[in-house]
């Protein structure tokens, strides 16, 4: 017989009450773990996605900084364009290690659902790039090989009907090398859409970044079919030396071009993090409330249990239990209740991380492709430890009350 065994037997005496109390703790812990995982994962996801862009600085048309922040990560409507001359001017900057012009356009895919209605997600991002400078910026891009992908390559710089598809968009569209990809585009200044057919000449391996959902085509072709010859969406730049001073110097040199803004991806990262900061604070407040409610539940449950067992506690004292021993026993009951909630709650959060990730991705729509929720063993351990500490604090009052009972009065009140 040990104190733990005695405490556990006391808890299972009222299984429904114990289960409900532990369930409250489990829910609070699940919320706390999910929030912690989100805090951890979101920053890493932003950093990872930005890292995958390959460049540190973007030059783009002046506009909303948040739009600028998400533009390169998930595309978007209402794109602004800058003149291609800017690229010619900026590439002469001596601090530049690599530079690539990018044109982004939104096309309607050819595709309908079974009942003939237009498909729900009928748009795709077409990105016009210079193959050489773009691949120099992203040397990790690999073309898929194997059955259906043999002979995959990048398009010729002057090709007019060739595309390279990202991993996910190719999977979604069920396209392989040699297949035809159709896109409907309304060129700038026109009303009627035009249908274009492209041959898929290559499919990229999965990158885990925004490139997976992108269809690449030659820059000139993209500009032409969208009716925006001589215009760019973004100029991606990698500096020889990247730090705050170099960035400000670079920015100062090129702000002279009208209608152009220079945005560091560090700024983008900061903007995206702050964008979700408010939501995170609100979720944290909910988590704190859930934890407080769970603690109150634990206190209430153990107090009720102590009240019900007043006579029994008197008997324990009569057979030799001291104040500290009664305190220890009731405290252990609180600890076990907290653990019985914290462990399943943590496992629930870990098991449901993908669901949480999908919900957050749907609600926030921030365009990062890496996991938004990262639940690590350290996070689980810290949360369980936190729940145990809070449980122990919650047990102080009931345990102190039980320990202070006088045996004769306790036994009498229990009869």
């Amino acid at each position: 017989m040990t104190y733990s065994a005695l405490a556990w037997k006391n808890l299972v005496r009222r299984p429904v009450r114990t289960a409900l109390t532990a369930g409250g703790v489990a829910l609070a812990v699940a919320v706390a773990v999910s929030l912690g995982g989100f805090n951890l994962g979101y920053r890493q996801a932003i950093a990872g996605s930005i890292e995958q862009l390959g460049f540190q600085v973007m030059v783009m048309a002046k506009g909303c900084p948040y739009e600028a922040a998400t533009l390169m990560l998930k595309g978007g409507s209402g794109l602004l364009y800058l003149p291609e001359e800017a690229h010619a001017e900026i590439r002469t900057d001596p601090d530049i290690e690599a530079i690539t012009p990018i044109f982004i356009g939104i096309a309607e895919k050819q595709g309908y659902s079974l009942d003939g209605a237009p498909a729900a997600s009928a748009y795709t991002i077409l990105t016009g790039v210079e193959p050489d400078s773009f691949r120099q910026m992203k040397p990790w891009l690999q073309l898929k090989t194997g059955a259906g992908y043999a002979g995959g390559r990048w398009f010729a710089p002057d090709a007019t009907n060739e595309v390279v598809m990202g991993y996910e968009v190719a999977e979604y569209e069920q396209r392989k090398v040699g297949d035809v990809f159709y896109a409907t585009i309304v060129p700038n200044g026109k009303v009627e859409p035009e249908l274009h057919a492209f041959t898929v000449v290559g499919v990229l391996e999965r990158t885990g970044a925004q490139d997976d959902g992108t269809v690449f085509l030659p820059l000139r072709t993209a500009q032409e079919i969208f009716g925006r010859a001589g215009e760019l969406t973004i100029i991606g730049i990698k500096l020889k030396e990247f730090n705050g001073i170099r960035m400000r110097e670079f920015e100062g040199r090129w702000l002279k071009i009208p209608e152009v803004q220079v945005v560091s991806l560090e700024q983008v990262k900061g903007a995206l993090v702050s964008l979700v900061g408010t939501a995170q604070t609100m979720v944290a407040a909910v988590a704190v409330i859930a934890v407080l409610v769970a603690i109150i539940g634990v206190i209430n449950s153990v107090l009720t249990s102590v009240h019900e067992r007043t006579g029994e506690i008197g008997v324990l004292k009569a057979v030799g239990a001291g104040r500290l021993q009664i305190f220890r026993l009731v405290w252990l009951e609180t600890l076990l209740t907290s653990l019985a909630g914290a462990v399943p709650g943590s496992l629930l959060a870990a098991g449901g991380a993908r669901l949480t990730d999908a919900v957050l991705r749907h609600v926030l729509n921030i365009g990062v492709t890496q996991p938004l929720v990262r639940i690590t063993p350290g996070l689980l351990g810290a949360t369980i430890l936190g729940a145990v500490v809070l449980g122990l604090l919650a047990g102080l009052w009931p345990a102190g009350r039980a320990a202070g009972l006088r045996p004769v009065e306790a036994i009498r009140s229990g009869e």
Partner: protein
Amino acid sequence: MDKEILISGRNLRRHYRRGSETVKALDGVDVDVRAGESVCVLGPSGSGKTTLVNLLSALDAPTAGELTIGGRRVDGLSERELVAVRRGLLGYVFQQFHLIPTLTVAENVALPLLFLERRPAPGEIARVLEAVGLADRARHLPKELSGGQMQRVAIGRALAVKPRVLIADEPTGNLDSHTGEAIFDLFQKTVREDGVALVLTTHNLVMAARCDRTLTLADGRIVS
């Protein structure tokens, strides 16, 4: 009369406040309990029997008077200090058994050892159960036992710490006469074989006649 005095009370008083009224549950009682003797406390309900045994078992403290248990003055001690007096020296048996319902017979008997921070030696609990005639009920829960068996468990629990004084408050009050007699025989055997002092309260005059001494209480005083 040269046996060691284990409990000695002089002019013991225990008064309670009930609203504006003072209830004199005990009002000047002198009592000695010696090793190896059985003392029966008789008296009608409300005469102060339970109050007296609560004081003698250090479960309660007297309002006035001198009380010495195991050679230590206990009047005026705090609850924390009274626990130390109770431990190992006194065993208490209740009228209503007061077993812990979630623990088996063996676990109930071993419970006081937990509070002494001592693990039972191999076979120790089995020997206690053997002594109270419950060797075959070790793994049973209290709800699976008869009233007499439950009281035997309670006696086993009191004996587990090898007390020098066994105090029982109407231990046969909830039992039929046949079972009550068997329980009393068990008490007598303990006194005889282990040299334990026994203080018990009862309404049963036959049982009282079998004790070494009888104290009769009325209105908080010893009348004979």
